[in-house]
């Protein structure tokens, strides 16, 4: 849905400077100074709902033009039957031995399919700051990337990125959810 109605929310902004003070004047003799004269502008709009988007002129003031993003395409196929999620211990950035066989299988797939590319997405649990968690997720993705390059995968086939705490596999503030979320996901493009 387009946020059409936000165009209506602002018609004009007046540049209003502070009015100089006039002191020591009888209370009812002071005219209120009108500072609105400079602002001509936009017709006042009280009408609700649907004004056409194109017709709405963008005033120089506080209007905000909304933008809407569509969903991106989903991932492509990789080697069949190989785990695509690698879990990490708390505060850890090393690939546990139990996941080494999965890393090996993905590496073999990539070295024998040089045109295929993979995104390694690092994730953290929800605790802590979003930006710092993004950097921690990056460390997890980099750990997997290093393992794969050591196994001969070309750097050009791998992109290590982080989604930090932003895309939890499981919501909730439990130890179980945290453990499910400390992970790296391998997605073929």
């Amino acid at each position: 849905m387009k946020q059409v109605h936000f165009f209506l929310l602002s018609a004009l902004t007046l540049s209003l400077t502070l009015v100089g003070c006039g002191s020591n004047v009888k209370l009812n003799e002071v005219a209120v100074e009108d500072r609105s004269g400079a602002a001509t502008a936009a017709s006042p709009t009280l009408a609700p709902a649907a004004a056409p988007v194109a017709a709405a002129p963008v005033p120089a003031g506080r209007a905000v033009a909304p933008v809407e993003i569509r969903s991106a395409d989903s991932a492509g196929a990789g080697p069949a039957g190989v785990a695509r999620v690698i879990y990490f211990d708390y505060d850890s950035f090393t690939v546990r031995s139990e996941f080494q066989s999965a890393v090996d299988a993905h590496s073999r797939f990539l070295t024998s399919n040089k045109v295929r590319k993979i995104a390694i997405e690092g994730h953290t649990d929800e605790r802590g700051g979003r930006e710092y968690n993004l950097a921690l997720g990056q460390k997890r993705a980099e750990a997997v990337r290093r393992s794969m390059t050591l196994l001969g995968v070309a750097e050009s086939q791998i992109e290590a990125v982080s989604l930090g705490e932003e895309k939890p596999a499981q919501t909730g503030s439990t130890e179980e959810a945290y453990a499910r979320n400390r992970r790296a996901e391998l997605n073929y493009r």
Partner: protein
Amino acid sequence: MQYSWTARTDNVKNDLSSANFERRFALKAISAGGLLGVTAMPAWAQFRVEVSGVGVTQLPIALPLFAGEAQAPQKISAILRADLERSGMFRAVDAEGLKADENTRFDTAIWRQRGADSVATGSVTLLADGRFDVRVRLWDVVRSQDLGGQSHVVSAADLRLAAHRVADFIHEKLTREKGVFATRIAYVTKSGTRFNLWVADSDGESAQSALISPEPIISPSWSPTGAQLAYVSFESRKPVIYSHDVASGKRRLLANFKGSNSAPAWSPDGRHLLATLSRDGGSQIYSMDVNGSEPRRLTQSSSIDTEPTYTPDGQNIYFVSDRGGAPQIYKMAANGSNPQRVTFSGNYNISPALSPDGRWLAYISRIGGAFKLHVMDLASGVTNAITDTSADENPSFAPNSRLILYATQQQGREALMTSTLDGKVKARLTGAVGDIREPDWGPFTR
């Protein structure tokens, strides 16, 4: 003391038995009259200002109802009151039953009896063209002095803005410092699987959507002119940095290098952007020309370096690094030289924000599993935790350096708060529906 000012009653209740000073008032949104009550303020809008601690010095001001405001879509005097009280500099005194507008001649003794040092009187008038004329006059009732008046002719949609400008006028007249009420903030909400970047008034209201995305948006950062927002968007399934002209909706990809691109921060002159990139493996801080240039790497560590922010003079950069084994705040010269550690207490200090006057550092410190907003006086190094919440995030300063905006959780829900630097006056902002986070306070734009 508790004042309760709700949609059901305008009576002011004083509960002196409560030790916790709390002033609460729900604005009568679109009730009485209501013929023009269409857009700007939703019915659930509620301000809440908490005053805690002793020794809070506040200017007592009377804010009687503006003449005609019962027929206007916005309750001007209530918006004024919320603004002024949120600043921590003012205390609204009981004006119940006293009627006045900007032309009224009145007896200052009546206001003195109520404990007011100043009074703002005014009116809201519907003009023939459908706009409203908001008029105000400010009085010093101690010295029986007229401090000046203003008139703002605005559309119904801009009535709240007019109220904020009146609040700024009062703030500046009485404190000799600029008010920040007519400035804007940005924040992000998550509602279901929908992320929304909003631009709102400084009280979180009148929110306008700048960006809607099925993927997360984090770290919005206002450009020094207030025209652009830089932010991190995950719309391409990785973090990339956009700058976004909020008036036109025009977006520009500022950083989409291999790996992650995050933590944008503008230089004070608006010509450079700092960002955390992982293009060389590992999260490091880079500087980029806003008009496009090869990023220049500023940090050279094998650790995490992120969350950069310029000092207001542009000479130095504060940032977070775990080079010492745990995340701490450091500072370095703008060219990356001479890094020095700034925080020494605790083992998790992140999200540095510097006040525009250069005197204060706000940051988040983890203490026993709780994330708490701290404020450091940079001259003395004295640091205080200023909240009693435990999930504080993302502080940013008001452009007059008097308030801090941050995200936290209250009663299990995400919330935006403002606080004075001493933590004594806090207000919860309402804003748009959904989980609310990632606030950033915009600059003065006048």
